[in-house]
């Protein structure tokens, strides 16, 4: 089964060359040239302009916060789920993938209805005599939208990594005198690092680069870096500038890839 079938890899190698490597090369080409085709760094330094820099700053801030929120919500959840019997594994994964069968834009839109001043949540809150929630069209709503959309991508790698930890390893720590907190800090947390890194990557990158959530829930008041790039391609048609700004994003992606390569050598933090 080995060696003989080397040609079997040809279709995939060809496919990745044409549809993964070459397109990235195109971005580099466009990003480093101007309309006339001559070399320039202007498209990249354009990030320093006030508008672009602000968009990047806001994007970084919002995506960092949502990644953190996702992590804090998902870790306890993944720990609870990892304690459930193994035979439920597929079911648990399904619960978190199933919402994706309802269109992502519609689901995000539904949050408008939920969050509105006279929306469902505020009806429930006033029924409970609690103060109303006024976050629609604010950065908080954008963060909520990001957390909502990307939470499964944090839960699944964490769940996967945590359920791989041998219960006897945890028992061993307890046996050697560690209390619950110490066991968590010294054993469970370090052993779940591949899942943590993978989860952070899977949430941070989409959150950093999204361009619809802010216009749906943020009221279009905040421009994120994703919105800027999208506009360069679809409205202003300055592909060179758009590519240059994309290259900035790719730096963050690259950092993430390096991190996953270091901490997750065997792909243990994968989603499935």
């Amino acid at each position: 089964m080995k060696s003989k079938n080397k040609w079997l890899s040809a279709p995939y190698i060809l496919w990745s060359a044409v549809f993964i490597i070459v397109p990235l090369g195109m971005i580099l080409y466009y990003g480093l040239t101007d309309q006339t085709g001559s070399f320039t760094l202007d498209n990249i330094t354009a990030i320093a302009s006030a508008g672009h820099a602000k968009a990047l700053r806001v994007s970084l801030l919002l995506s960092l916060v949502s990644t953190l929120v996702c992590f804090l919500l998902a870790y306890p959840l993944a720990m609870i789920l990892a304690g459930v019997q193994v035979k439920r594994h597929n079911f648990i994964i399904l619960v978190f993938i199933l919402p994706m069968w309802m269109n992502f834009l519609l689901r995000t839109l539904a949050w408008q209805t939920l969050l509105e001043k006279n929306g469902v949540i505020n009806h429930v809150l006033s029924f409970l005599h609690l103060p109303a929630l006024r976050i629609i069209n604010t950065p908080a709503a954008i963060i909520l939208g990001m957390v909502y959309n990307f939470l499964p991508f944090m839960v699944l790698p964490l769940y996967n990594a945590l359920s791989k930890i041998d219960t006897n390893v945890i028992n061993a720590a307890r046996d050697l005198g560690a209390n619950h907190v110490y066991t968590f800090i010294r054993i469970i947390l370090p052993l779940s690092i591949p899942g943590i890194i993978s989860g952070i990557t899977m949430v941070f990158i989409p959150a950093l680069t999204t361009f619809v959530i802010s216009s749906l829930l943020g009221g279009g008041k905040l421009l994120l870096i994703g919105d800027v790039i999208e506009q360069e391609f679809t409205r202003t048609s300055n592909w060179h500038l758009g590519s240059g700004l994309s290259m900035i994003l790719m730096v963050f992606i690259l950092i993430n890839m390096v991190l996953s390569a270091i901490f997750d050598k065997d792909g243990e933090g994968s989603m499935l």
Partner: protein
Amino acid sequence: MKTIAKRIYVALIILFLYAPIGILMVLSFNRSKTRAKWGGFTLHWYRALFQNEEILRALLNTLLIALLSSLIATVIGTVACIAMNGMKRRAKSVLMGITNIPMLNADIVTGISLMLLYISLGIKFGMGTILLSHITFNIPYVILSVMPRMKQLNVSTYEAALDLGSSPLHAFFKVVFPDLLPGILSGFLMAFTMSLDDFIITHFTKGVGVDTLSTKIYTEIKKGIKPEMYALSSLIFVTVLTLLVLVNLSPTDKKSSVGTLDSENASHSP
């Protein structure tokens, strides 16, 4: 007490994930056209849905793209896994690294890069470009779910089949393929789901006049969403839910869920 707290926590998260879906389903029965008000129960939007050719066309496009792209990605991905299994370590890890790019890369960057590729190759934008793009981002999902199965594969069963006189191809389909099948199926399902849910990459690689459900919704957002969309989404969701429940309750699954008799070795977490 502790278990109750755990259950409440899980329930809250699930409520968080499914509440918007519930809202959309409620809206699909809403007589009022605006999302803000409940105007009474109606099935009107479900009837209107089947007369709305634009939406039906977008649905057809979406399903066609999802089905074709996930099928093709499954074939390419599975073959790639088999090929990679026989590769040298170095070559394999390089290829796996490339495989990870579309997964780790931002959708917007992937979308833009593919758009630039199609333009420079002079490929006409339309269903074809959407399909090519979806295959590209679907392959990694297939590879990532088949690869672990590949690693667990017992090579001796394949060799045993050869030893017993079967041809390599026959041995593959009779012995290796069934072992890989669960991975292949979950890869396919994952790819199908991702393709169905994709908006960003389709947004950049579709032509004028060609729409999938996501891009159709995106254009409608500005003009106001037609409630038929809620009806359609609800139908899709309920269909999938029903299918999954049926699959999960099928007797083949029961066999594995009958508890192991050897309770000695079962780990009982606190």
